[in-house]
């Protein structure tokens, strides 16, 4: 796995995407607001573009119309020949790939920030590809330092050998913000304000980088997936129980072998039978029931992120 190259030029083409899932309301309303009032996304060295990623799902206030847009940015979908029967999200993914990519090309946007909310108690979570995603990790570090009261966590989603499938992988660099808990279809003022402030700080960081700031090496703690756990199900595939009250809302807390994880409708507890401590995330996320995921099991890792040297003095910033 090769490192994502640290940018050697200022980042000029930046997008902020909301409504990738049409019922995750904070991003939807932020993008709608910025489309009318874009000044908030302007910085001295660049202006970010707001993008409503899934307009049809947003109008219907649903996660997706035909298939999950956030799983559709793989080369299989992006490069296959268009047909009239293509699912809505496949067509849309190709449009976004034209707008913000093409993926893995020199013309791709420099950075895409993807806005999400979860019904799980994810708090403030930054989702980057891997521990080699140096630029994104320096950005996460900056956010953590700016918001010490928020207990921001970092989740590295890419599993080895797998192609990345989400929107921010289309651009040269990217990051997703995942805030929770918030029900689908609900717009909470606290989550909305927090997301708005985080976006502003992300753009501030990019501007700092563009203006020639150097960022020193640091130790980062992050979470990486090692597996998933489905709900207990009947033979017919229906739920036979749900997340145990002791696990509910305990995202990022250690789960030890022997701890209760599910409570059956008939009353018994099911215990975690793994061999080592894991850190569960996305516990009881509504959208993951159909994906067979009650929670994602992660391991905690600590690693060094190399310094990001200052850009060599740039020509005058684009107006």
């Amino acid at each position, binding site marked *: 796995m090769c490192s994502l190259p640290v940018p050697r030029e200022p980042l000029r083409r930046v997008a902020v995407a909301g409504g990738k899932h049409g019922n995750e309301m904070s991003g939807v309303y932020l993008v709608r607001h910025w489309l009318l009032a874009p000044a908030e996304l302007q910085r001295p060295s660049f202006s970010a573009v707001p993008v409503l990623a899934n307009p049809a799902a947003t109008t219907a206030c649903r996660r997706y119309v035909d298939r999950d847009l956030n799983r559709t940015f793989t080369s299989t979908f992006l490069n296959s020949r268009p047909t009239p029967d293509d699912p809505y999200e496949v067509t849309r993914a190709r449009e976004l790939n034209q707008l913000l990519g093409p993926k893995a090309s020199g013309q791709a946007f420099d950075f895409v920030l993807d806005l999400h909310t979860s019904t799980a108690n994810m708090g403030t979570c930054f989702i980057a590809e891997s521990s080699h995603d140096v630029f994104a990790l320096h950005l996460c570090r900056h956010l953590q330092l700016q918001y010490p009261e928020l207990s921001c966590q970092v989740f590295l989603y890419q599993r080895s050998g797998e192609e990345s499938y989400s929107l921010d992988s289309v651009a040269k660099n990217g990051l997703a913000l995942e805030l929770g808990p918030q*029900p689908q279809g*609900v717009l909470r*003022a606290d989550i909305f304000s927090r997301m708005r402030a985080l976006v502003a700080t992300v753009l501030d960081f990019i501007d700092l980088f563009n203006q020639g700031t150097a960022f020193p090496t640091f130790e980062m703690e992050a979470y990486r997936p090692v597996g998933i756990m489905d709900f207990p199900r009947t033979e017919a595939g229906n739920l036979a129980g749900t997340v145990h009250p002791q696990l509910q809302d305990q995202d990022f807390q250690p789960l030890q072998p022997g701890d209760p994880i599910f409570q059956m409708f008939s009353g018994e507890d099911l215990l975690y039978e793994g061999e080592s401590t894991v850190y569960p995330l996305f516990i*009881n996320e509504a959208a993951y029931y159909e994906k067979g995921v009650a929670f994602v099991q992660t391991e905690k890792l600590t690693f060094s992120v190399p310094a990001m040297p200052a850009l060599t003095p740039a020509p005058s910033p684009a107006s």
Partner: protein
Amino acid sequence: MTSCHIAEEPIKKVAIFGGTHGNELTGVFLVKHWLKNGAEIQRTGLEVKPFITNPRAVKKCTRYIDCDLNRIFDLENLGKKMSEDLPYEVRRAQEINHLFGPKNSEDSYDIIFDLHNTTSNMGCTLVLEDSRNNFLIQMFHYIKTSLAPLPCYVYLIEHPSLKYATTRSIAKYPVGIEVGPQPQGVLRADILDQMRKMIKHALDFIHHFNEGKEFPSCAIEVYKIMEKVDYPRNENGEIAAIIHPNLQDQDWKPLHPGDPVFLTLDGKTIPLGGDCTVHPVFVNEAAYYEKKEAFAKTTKLTLHADSIRCSLH
């Protein structure tokens, strides 16, 4: 002290509805569980039938397919000529009316409990449709007392224009059960436990009543609907302000004129107008954005019930 009490017929037929809204999962899974193993809901001498009211919406994990099932049990919809062109839920309402009604007839079920969730922070809520129903006031008093110290609120939807034609209204005694907060499409163990307890106490009450227990006159605090308040919107009809952080999650708590109600996207606070204290409910319910309801204003009042006793004893 009073020797005067209302003699009521024994209760014979009870139904428990889940999945009236297909993404309100607690009722869906309780009913599915009881359909396989109904021991928990049996009481001697009582028929208790669990039932999924909107199976297509449940399968898609969506509130409804064509229209909201919980708003169409009025006589006009129930009387429409059956045809494939009718919305799915209207056809379904007629089937349910046939099985558990007909509405306003002697044959209808005695009690229907309709299980719902809300994204609002309403805790355990019982919904009452008629302020003069002694039997249900007594039942609600029993449930509240049994659940204490866990709070249980009573929402009275009796109102000349705001009352709606619920699925449960085909029964002689309709009971709405609403527990939140829970996101749509999520099943929380704590919420499941609360709803399960509410049903248990309700069935215990019916059983005690049928066995001849006298319930002395009582009083309960209820919150009566006054009006619904929409979100401020722009010219395109889009939401221009959201529930203020001070009001978010504060269902049932007193809201005074001048208190913050909405926060605009530009950061301005919009306060409560008028000159009386209200108690807001259904604050930021996901399903009510399209119904243009940010919250409902209620007024707190006390309802009294005469003592009741089953007439067979």
